[in-house]
């Protein structure tokens, strides 16, 4: 098997030996932006509006105040939550007491949680995508296992397009782009939300 590296590379070189090799096309990545992304103004307010519209189209929700989020959670009787310790102080002050926030997460009690609140590293207006990474997200499992995931997002972190977000990938070993709730259409093409990941993907824009 250790020989396989040499073998595979030798085979590839042999296959390409007498070939004219096509150059890398020179192109402007702006070409990959969709019509909608091109039309968005560069202001933060316009990016927020575009992001919210795209997120809703992808089946997600956005709130711009802690109160509105709390009202929605309570309306669905979702009261037991996990919260990134770095956010808990700020949020507890504004949340009604009926909502409990734990700042520790145990693998064997994941299913007891109704929701989880973690920080987003960024977002993409073009697609309604929430960007998570290992540095910003306190627990990968928290952003994934409970039915509701709330990502706290600062408006300044919203990228215009997929191309812009790729340019900002940085050096985190793990970046996850989340565009709406977990989905499947495997059974007869019928769209169902909440397969393995959240059935509700929420952005709390503060």
């Amino acid at each position, binding site marked *: 098997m250790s020989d396989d590296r040499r073998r595979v590379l030798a085979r590839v070189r042999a296959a390409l030996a007498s070939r004219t090799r096509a150059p890398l096309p020179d192109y402007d990545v702006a070409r990959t932006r969709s019509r909608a992304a091109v039309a968005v103004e560069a202001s933060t307010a316009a990016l927020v509006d575009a992001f919210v519209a795209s997120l809703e189209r992808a089946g997600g929700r956005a709130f711009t105040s802690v109160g509105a989020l709390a009202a929605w959670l309570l309306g669905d009787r979702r009261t037991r939550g996990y919260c990134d310790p770095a956010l808990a102080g700020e949020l507890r002050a504004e949340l009604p007491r009926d909502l409990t926030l734990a700042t520790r997460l145990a693998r064997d009690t994941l299913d007891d949680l109704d929701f989880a609140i973690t920080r987003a590293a960024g977002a993409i207006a073009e697609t309604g995508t929430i960007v998570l990474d290992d540095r910003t997200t306190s627990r990968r499992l928290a952003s*994934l296992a409970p039915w509701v995931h709330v990502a706290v997002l600062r408006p300044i972190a919203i990228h215009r397009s997929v191309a812009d977000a790729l*340019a900002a990938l940085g050096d985190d070993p793990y970046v996850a782009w989340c565009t709406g709730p977990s989905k499947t259409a495997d059974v007869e093409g019928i769209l169902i939300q909440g397969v393995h990941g959240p059935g509700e993907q929420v952005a709390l824009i503060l």
Partner: protein
Amino acid sequence: MSREPIDRFAAAQSDERKASVREGSKAGYDARRMALGRDHEDTDALRRLAGAIKQHVLDHLDEYLERSALALEAHGVSVHFAADATSARDVVTDVLRHRGARRVVKTKTMLGEEIDLGAHLESRGFECVETDLGEFVVQLAHDRPSHIVKPIIHQSRREVARTFEANGLGDYDDTPEVITRRAREHLRRKYLTADAAITGANFVSAESGRLVLVTNEGNSRFCLAATRCHVALVGIEKLVPRDRDLAVFLNLLARSATGQHLTVYTEFLRGPRGPAQPDGPDEVHVVFVDNGRSEILGGDLREVLRCIRCGACLNVCPVYRQASGHAYRSVYGGPIGAVVSPLLGADRRRSLDFADLPRASTLCGACHEVCPVDIPLEELLVRLRDRGREAGAHASGGLSMAGWSLLASRPAAWRAALAAGAVVDVLPRPLLPGPVKAWGENHALPPWRGGRFRAWLAARGPR
């Protein structure tokens, strides 16, 4: 008139299955057309650009492979190469044994299907659970996936419900929502108790070493959040030059596959979890698998290696829609399967078994028109037919093949033959000598459907 194997397989499908495939593929096609036309100024230019980038990568694959391996190793990933399916399976088995892993969760990977990894691991005493909903159903039902993107497109909800009932996943209930919840609960326990995760990769950026995984269900995220060891199987053709090039491919892949702007989850990873992150693998392995790809690279069908496995060519193909994926008798169905199945891995040894596949096409060119990486599939199918003709001619002594050769290579004769009914009426089958007769029994021309083929053929010129 004798029938091709693909016809016999297609005819054996129940009406229920045929309807499932027809409706599912049409829905996929409609979604794609709406999304691409609506969102981009010049979709055609974008997919030609994607094709040109991929072709560049293939033409410099030696350099890009080395660059990717170095970038991955620099970020703490163990990089392996596997020349064939056996070697790939051995690498994975060794990694798992070394880790002391016994329970494995797995995402959908076409390469995993190609090397039959799941069954291999089970036979070596590992528990290997498929986590994509469709693949999970396939595993429970001892079935085979029949579509690149929608593995159980051929199954009705009733079949799925019966499978769940038979496997102790609750009483019979064919509501898709109930089926999905039951899978969620069952598989969640599997993730949380698994020792390792096996995934594929949709792209690898040679510049950064980043692996890109796209899923809609989130099973890949769960695999990478709950387990401590990650093994990714990557076909050597999966590379792109730089991170920025992913903008072209991610935009095209989601729209071509399902009509989404972006697949729900796109993960970029290169190495073990971050220092402050409690969840995720501390050990990451990437296995670059050849399994026939370098041979394709050296041949006249190399454009097929651009494929990003979106499934658009299946959805649009009139033959696939009628025949369904299983009729192609391989991991890959539809037009792309008709080209790669005889070329990849263990299937190469059975390439004569697939001799009918390149002929299972109307050459209408619809597969080429929708391909996000501009693979000239109809042209590759004709090259494969030529190749089959040469192999057949060689095997049967040459001269007797003249009639077929004439038909296969001359459009005018082809048209005349089709006008007369079918090629079997032109080949004097009863008069052919034994071996040629046997060969001829497996050969028939498809019905003429017109379309872009004539124009394309004229532009192609004499060979």
